[in-house]
């Protein structure tokens, strides 16, 4: 199995680092930058042990995210999937989420994908308590987003859904992961 860029999918994403040797020089330029930024000794700026590289930001997670979306859709396409009379995930919401996952930059971590009781699908990047970013679609060509950057620091709103990721969402994700 390969990623969209032809890289092999290796199942160690969740750990964030690995002991597996990796052919790093074959990576495309944008990924290489991510590799290099994660592979320098903080004090000397010399390359660190190549056997322990943080690969999470450098691997295309799109296929894995789409598989996760498929699982959620399959399981929650019936009413009352949550025990509280939830609506089934709509086909439209599924396609919107699928489209969004394909165009989100892989430089951010893979989101947690889950169903919402109104038939929508939510993508969540959860860093820690009070620090998270959520993008939600419910098949009406509207993206709802919520960004939380501390207990009293947040924004939320909606954007029309076209074929690109709204700037406010990209900026919110950058903000979440820049701290």
């Amino acid at each position, binding site marked *: 199995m390969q990623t969209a860029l032809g890289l092999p999918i290796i199942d160690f994403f969740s750990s964030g680092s690995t002991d597996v040797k990796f052919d790093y020089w074959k990576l495309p330029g944008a990924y290489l930058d991510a590799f290099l930024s994660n592979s320098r000794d903080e004090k000397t700026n010399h390359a660190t042990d190549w056997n322990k590289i943080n690969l999470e930001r450098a691997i295309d997670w799109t296929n894995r995210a789409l598989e996760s979306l498929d699982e959620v859709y399959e399981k929650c396409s019936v009413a009352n999937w949550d025990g*509280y009379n939830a609506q089934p995930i709509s086909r439209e919401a599924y396609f919107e989420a699928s489209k969004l996952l394909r165009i989100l930059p892989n430089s951010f971590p893979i989101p947690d994908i889950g169903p919402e009781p109104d038939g929508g699908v939510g993508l969540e990047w959860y860093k820690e308590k009070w620090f998270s970013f959520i993008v939600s679609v419910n098949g009406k060509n*509207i993206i709802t987003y919520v960004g939380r950057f501390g207990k009293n620091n947040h924004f939320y709103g909606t954007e029309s859904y076209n074929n690109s990721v709204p700037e406010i969402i990209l900026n919110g994700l950058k903000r979440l992961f820049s701290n």
Partner: protein
Amino acid sequence: MKQKNTISSAEVITRYIFDKTHYARTKNNVKYRSFLPRNGETSIFRINNLGDKQIWDIGENYVAIISSRTLLARGDLIASDIFEEGLEIKSDTREHKLHANIVGWPLGERGKIIFLATNLADKAQLHLKP
């Protein structure tokens, strides 16, 4: 003992969880999705002064069986956690004397609803079903 219809700020309430995407075992947290309302209400139970077994029994006997779902976990909150978000708790004893609903969700404001649900989720204490 008859329950009061008024819920005090110090009362403990719980949201039973039946879907594995509604909590994260590894991060020990409840997900916002578990608190999202359906038709303007989020069903909860008042569990003040109940033992752990009693709390799980309510979830099994009055929620899981009726909905034919497997009870996986629950998220406990203090009533004040809910009031602080501008939401209310309304007692609804038709099915069970300890049942209530979180109400007052801003209808039509999907962003704000998700925001409030994330806040409740972050305040909630996750308990996994033994």
